[in-house]
């Protein structure tokens, strides 16, 4: 072995190089405060390794970016861990950068003759921030899409060249394929290559001038290897442990949240995203912008951050005197505390804003649903995953209901999305429409004229209400049992998924109920049921609450099958289909949602 290494050394001179590299003298001995530079290098290496692996599975493109990241996160072995490590190490780097900068400043390692190295360090800091910013977009989820939109729009306010600059970064006048290809080329190619070159320069300059030690020296002098290396590896291990912990923290604490890094719902320019926020380490800049009124935006976005960065480059010059050094430390301290305060303000304001909190809940729900639909047997179509949510009754139903129905109707007392409706209720509450419970309430004398049913409508004193009040109130227990069967029979017409097994189980009672409906209970005196009835004056009970019935009803409530002749343009229900207020797809989505008809993973698939 020795002979082999001798031969290798003779050919390459590796011993001299490793000796040079490792036998750096450290006056005053190894110390914990010197570990930060090494942890940063370690993080960069981790990012390169995990980044290469991610690259092998990632596909930049409007219809493939989210989809490939979904596949990494949810389908590929270890994918969630890989993304988690990459994402949390990136976040850790931002913290470590601040610690490294603080150590360098406090120990005076930025002063002459080390100015150039300090500048290289500042550029590296900006490269890390640029890597964070570009990486945030790559999953092409709502979060990254809207955050990047803000960041690139800010570029547009640069005087004269702003619009062109924005076009170059975005890859055209609009966000799309080329935004992703460009951000990816920067993120995985240009920026890391620049980082490697500058890290080499940074370390070389550092070795050229030697370490700036903290005085007084308390221990005897030692060397980088192995004393400092041991401390560095321990620090790197701590970073790794923190990153791994963050990856699995939800699992450990049993809280709701993803394994590894988040993946939001696919980007959609027509879908609002009120939870849009940059990554937490950019929150201070985000918050800063709030304090500048319109005409002053350029100060908050460009001029002041630019001045701060410029002053940072001057610190070595300012630090030549003892007073200057103290000033620098005070400045750094002020910047860090100021950024911390802004970050805290941003978080505090968001925490106190119920609208924002609800937006986050909805964002999480959409993210979860998008992944669920992507896992469904139909999978992701070639047109991309954004179309999955657009065609999903569970996602679109509440929004469509809130927009088109909730100005009169309610859903479980709210507007469908969980928000209170601002308009007074003038129509029924449609939660569980056509289900047995819903119909039982309708046929309950105590409830039929409550706002839940006819109470807020012009039918408050209509025939149905009168009939229920008069007849049902007087029912004997036998008749009540008969009514129960009628309810089953009408409800069975809807064919609701939630009642599938009940409908099958009660087939006999339903048959009986259908007969009673025409006979003793006498619904067909006004309603048509199962056979055409020219004289019907009330809504058709054939197929009541079925998909077809609902679509036809929403499309044209004044149709002879439903409420013929009673329509009053000012107060009646609009003909959403006939008047072209909603297209067929939207009406279908509302109907499916009201009927609880959407894709649900089988219990086995979710495990």
């Amino acid at each position: 072995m020795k002979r082999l290494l001798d031969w290798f050394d003779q050919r390459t001179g590796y011993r001299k190089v490793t000796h040079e590299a490792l036998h750096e003298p450290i006056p005053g001995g190894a110390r914990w405060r010197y570990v930060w530079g090494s942890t940063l290098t370690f993080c960069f290496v981790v990012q390169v390794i995990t980044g290469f692996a991610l690259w092998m599975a990632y596909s930049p493109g409007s219809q493939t970016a989210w989809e490939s990241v979904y596949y990494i996160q949810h389908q590929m072995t270890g994918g969630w861990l890989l993304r988690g490590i990459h994402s949390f190490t990136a976040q850790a780097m931002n913290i470590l950068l601040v610690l490294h900068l603080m150590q360098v400043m406090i120990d005076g390692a930025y002063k002459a003759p080390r100015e150039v190295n300090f500048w290289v360090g500042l550029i590296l800091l900006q490269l890390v921030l640029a890597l964070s910013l570009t990486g945030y977009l790559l999953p092409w989820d709502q979060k990254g899409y809207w955050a990047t939109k803000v960041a690139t729009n800010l570029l547009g306010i640069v005087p004269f060249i702003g619009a062109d600059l924005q076009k170059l970064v975005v890859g055209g006048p609009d966000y799309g394929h080329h935004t992703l290809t460009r951000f990816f080329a920067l993120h995985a190619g240009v920026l890391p290559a620049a980082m490697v070159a500058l890290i080499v320069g940074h370390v070389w300059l550092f070795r050229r001038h030697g370490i700036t030690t903290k005085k007084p020296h308390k221990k005897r002098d030692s060397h980088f290897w192995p004393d400092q290396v041991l401390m560095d590896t321990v620090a790197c291990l701590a970073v790794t442990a923190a990153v791994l912990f963050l990856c699995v923290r939800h699992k450990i604490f049993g809280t709701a949240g993803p394994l590894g890094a988040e993946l939001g719902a696919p980007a959609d320019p027509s879908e609002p995203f009120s939870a849009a926020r940059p990554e937490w380490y950019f929150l201070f800049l985000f918050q800063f912008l709030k304090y500048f009124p319109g005409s002053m935006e350029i100060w908050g976005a460009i001029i002041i951050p630019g001045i701060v960065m410029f002053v940072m480059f001057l610190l070595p010059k300012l630090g030549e005197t003892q007073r200057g050094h103290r000033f620098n430390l005070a400045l750094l301290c002020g910047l860090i505390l100021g950024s911390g305060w802004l970050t805290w303000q941003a978080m505090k304001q968001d925490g106190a804003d119920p609208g924002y909190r609800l937006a986050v809940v909805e964002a999480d729900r959409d993210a979860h649903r998008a992944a669920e639909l992507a896992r469904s047997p139909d999978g992701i179509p070639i047109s991309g995953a954004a179309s999955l949510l657009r065609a999903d009754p569970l996602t679109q139903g509440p929004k469509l209901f809130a927009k088109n129905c909730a100005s009169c109707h309610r859903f479980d007392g709210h507007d469908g999305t969980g928000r209170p409706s601002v308009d007074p209720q003038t129509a029924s509450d449609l939660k569980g429409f056509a289900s047995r419970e819903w119909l039982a309430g309708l046929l309950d004398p105590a409830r039929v004229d409550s706002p839940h049913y006819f109470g807020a409508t012009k039918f408050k004193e209509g025939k149905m209400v009168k009939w229920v009040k008069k007849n049902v109130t007087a029912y004997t227990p036998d008749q009540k049992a008969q009514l129960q069967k009628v309810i089953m029979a009408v409800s069975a017409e809807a064919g609701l998924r939630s009642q599938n097994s009940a409908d099958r189980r009660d087939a006999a009672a339903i048959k009986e109920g259908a007969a009673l409906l025409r006979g003793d209970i006498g619904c067909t005196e006004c309603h048509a049921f199962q056979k055409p009835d020219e004289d019907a004056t009330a809504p058709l009970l054939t197929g009541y609450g079925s998909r077809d019935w609902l679509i036809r009803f929403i499309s044209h409530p004044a149709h002879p099958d439903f409420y013929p002749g009673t329509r009053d343009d000012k107060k009646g229900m609009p003909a959403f289909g006939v008047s072209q207020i909603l297209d067929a797809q939207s009406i279908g989505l509302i109907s499916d949602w009201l009927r609880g008809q959407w894709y649900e993973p089988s219990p086995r698939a979710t495990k």
Partner: protein
Amino acid sequence: MQPETQPNADAPAPEEQRREFLKKALSVAIGGATMVAPAAAGLAVYLDPLRRKAPPGKFVRVTTIEALPADGVPKKFPIISSREDAWNKTPATPIGAVYLRRTKEGALQAHNVACPHAGCFVDYKPEKNGYHCPCHNSTFELDGTIADENSPSPRGLDELKIEVRNQKEVWVHFQNFYAGHAEKTPVA
């Protein structure tokens, strides 16, 4: 680099100096020339987006008048139109969204949902009877004007032209505008 030394006995003859200079100059020139083609080609492609123009604004059918409440409350509509994304053309896909409302006087008004501050999607807030941007808290009145002078948006929401066709169809001239400027300039 060593500082220029004074000429001395070891210095090469002027003839040889010239030749040396010529060799150096040629090396730099030829070496540089070899890089021109790849650098130029690369730069051309890199700068290509500057040549790309945003599609001009176009009228898109959004809804019908009946879909708009008569009390001035805005409703949000996606703009479904054709879209070109580099190599893909999609005939009907969401390209943006608008708030549309019918004022109490019966006039129609459309606003692009993008906040003129930094492009976030503004929310309609019924309790404030206006719009609010969830990002940096810009606020707007229902008619799109700035509600709070100190809020970050440099201008009111971007109003879009409307045409009513066939008596009841609402068509909106959809366009995006540069964010962050007091003047409303269409993205080109």
